[in-house]
């Protein structure tokens, strides 16, 4: 490939979220000249995640991540809650093995992103906050730089890390506008509470943390779920609901969120707290289907921009996938720069590395999840069925007790669910999750 004009930088990264920062950091560490452009006045000021980060990938990039970075709590308690109008059934999974080695931690993007950006700066990358890239510059089939306002800057490689909508990838035709059923919308708030109150309410000690996943009435039956995560002295609470289902059921996402906050099984956790942050954000939910073309001459796409998000029904994962894609991209871009050949063919090593890593493997493992999660029954009848079975077992109404199996059969007879559906969903769920 010929590159007539000597570019301003080796690499220009668009977007200082997790994917962009981690890519920029590693390329700067390799000694490349890197420009990281971020439209926010400060990296992370508007970025939004629920807040559970599977941290092993981050530790590969920053060995002291857990002690140096602004992490909140180590998740040792996972609480899965089927919530109905006035009953709820939960699985409470606690395991000391989750604490050592650390598996997942809670983070607040408003703290994590500035920390990551500072790391990039230390490594020698140049950060430009407050600049929105309008489009990438192209020559023939090749991306050669970026344009913001009247200014143009050139690079051997452009990295699109501009998040879920990725107008950049859409603009150059790498991606189409995602269809509605590939998108969900998330609303999240951060509520402050004294550290001691949080530890008491969730029975935690030290830096242990809890992650509550809620399905059912918490989203008023719309496909999706709610979450409640503990930080040091605040809670992250939110919902993620499917955009197509929201439209179909004519519901407003903020109403559902209010319903969740006020729900009798959720409100007690929040009592006395003060709302510090509130935000809405799109979530990519297409799974593997959504990962399209992520490489072209002179450009790679990473993180949410590449469609790398997984919704397993109980968790939304995107941050660790952003890290994994950044690692794969930095390696491939570095090698291409060394070969002085940043064509699509050379940069294709990124895609190979990505699919050989945990990111690609997990995307493939959960490939059927989005379809499975579109089953309505997941969000209403199952929770009620579980509650009815347990009600039969615990409600001592002076009738002779029955075996649990019989109770379950009875409940199923009253439930709109049919045995065949249960079997079908069971098989589909086991395959997808």
């Amino acid at each position, binding site marked *: 490939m010929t590159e007539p004009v000597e570019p301003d930088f080796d690499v220009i990264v668009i977007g200082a979220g997790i994917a962009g920062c981690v890519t920029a950091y590693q390329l700067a560490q390799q000694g490349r000249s890197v420009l990281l452009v971020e439209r926010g006045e400060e990296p992370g000021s508007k970025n939004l995640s629920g807040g559970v980060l599977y941290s092993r990938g981050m530790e590969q990039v920053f060995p002291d991540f857990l002690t140096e970075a602004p992490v909140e709590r180590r998740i040792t308690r996972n609480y899965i809650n089927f919530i109905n109008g006035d009953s709820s059934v939960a699985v409470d999974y606690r395991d000391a093995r989750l604490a050592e080695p650390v598996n997942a931690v809670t983070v607040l993007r408003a703290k994590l992103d500035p920390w990551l950006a500072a790391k990039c700066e230390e490594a020698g990358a140049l950060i430009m906050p407050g*600049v929105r890239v309008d489009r990438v510059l192209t020559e023939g089939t090749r991306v050669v730089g970026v344009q913001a306002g009247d200014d143009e800057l050139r690079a051997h490689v452009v990295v699109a890390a501009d998040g879920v909508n990725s107008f950049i990838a859409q603009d150059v035709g790498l991606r189409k506008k995602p269809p509605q059923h590939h998108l969900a919308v998330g609303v999240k708030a951060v509520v402050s509470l004294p550290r001691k109150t949080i530890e008491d309410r969730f029975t935690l000690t030290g830096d242990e943390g809890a992650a509550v996943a809620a399905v059912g009435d918490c989203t008023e039956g719309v496909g999706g779920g709610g979450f409640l995560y503990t930080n040091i002295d605040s809670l992250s609470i939110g919902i993620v609901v499917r955009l197509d289902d929201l439209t179909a059921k004519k519901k407003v996402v903020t109403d559902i969120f209010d319903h969740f906050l006020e729900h009798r099984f959720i409100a007690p956790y929040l009592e006395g707290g003060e709302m510090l942050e509130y935000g809405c954000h799109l979530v990519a939910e297409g799974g593997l289907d959504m990962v399209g073309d992520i490489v072209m001459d002179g450009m790679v796409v990473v993180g949410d921009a590449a469609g790398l998000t997984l919704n397993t029904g109980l968790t939304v994962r995107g941050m660790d996938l952003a890290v994994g894609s950044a690692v794969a991209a930095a390696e491939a871009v570095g090698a291409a720069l060394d070969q002085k050949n940043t064509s699509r063919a050379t940069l294709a090593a990124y895609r190979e590395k990505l699919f050989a890593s945990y990111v690609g493997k997990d995307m493939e493992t959960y490939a059927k999840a989005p379809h499975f999660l579109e089953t309505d029954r997941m969000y209403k009848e199952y929770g009620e069925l579980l509650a009815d079975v347990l009600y039969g077992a615990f409600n001592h109404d002076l009738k002779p007790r029955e075996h649990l199996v019989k109770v379950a059969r009875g409940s199923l007879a009253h439930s709109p669910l049919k045995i065949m559906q249960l079997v079908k969903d069971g098989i589909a769920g086991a395959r997808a999750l």
Partner: protein
Amino acid sequence: MKIVVAYKWTRDPEEASARPDGTVDWSRAKPGLSTYDPVAIEVARQLAAETGAELIGVTVGDKGVGTPLACKAALGRGLDRVVTVEDGSLADAGRSELAAVLAEVIKHIGDVDLVVTGDSSMDVAAKMVPTVLAGELGWPAVAEVTSVTGKAGELRVGREIPGGAQVLEISGPAVLATSADAAAPRVPGMKDLLAAGKKPVEHLDLAALKVSPQNAVMTVTGRSLPERKVRKGQLIDTADPAQAADELLTALRQAGAL
């Protein structure tokens, strides 16, 4: 000609919250360039462009005001260089103390012909620093400045006064506080920010400046929130629009609003 823009790198009160006892929680407020300072920089930049003057940014304050991020945010708006005094002891400094430090920095720079400031700072908004600074320097101070033309020793300054506007001619150095909308600040572009990273930044040591100590110590000993007005909750409920209007008028007259 040398023009100094005194700017503030501080916290945004929109992200702060007042506690019931009147103290303020700033812990979530992010630092940034004070709202009106980009206006001051733009007014000064235009004058510097016309006169070929050197444009120097000066900021004094708590730890953080001299970070590369803070300096680049100011330099990207067109300053030629920046001089900072960054010292933890200035975190709680009063207006007169800050103005005294600024005056010493301006003397240190030497041969300054003009100091331009913003209308007021976003966190304190007392509008005092420019005036006290002018007093320290023995220069005239002008507030609500809408335009500056001319050159050193022959400045033409437009200002707003209650009920109208004036044009002043100033024959020597002066401190000018620009009005909130004196100019539309430019949003720095990539090339501006790229250049900003290469411009000189000078960090001065507070102790070396020999600022004379304040003669009196001022401490905040009490705080309170403004009293909440109790709403009357009066409801006008009638089907007849004319009658509703009558009742509304009577109610407003009784409340002394009309």
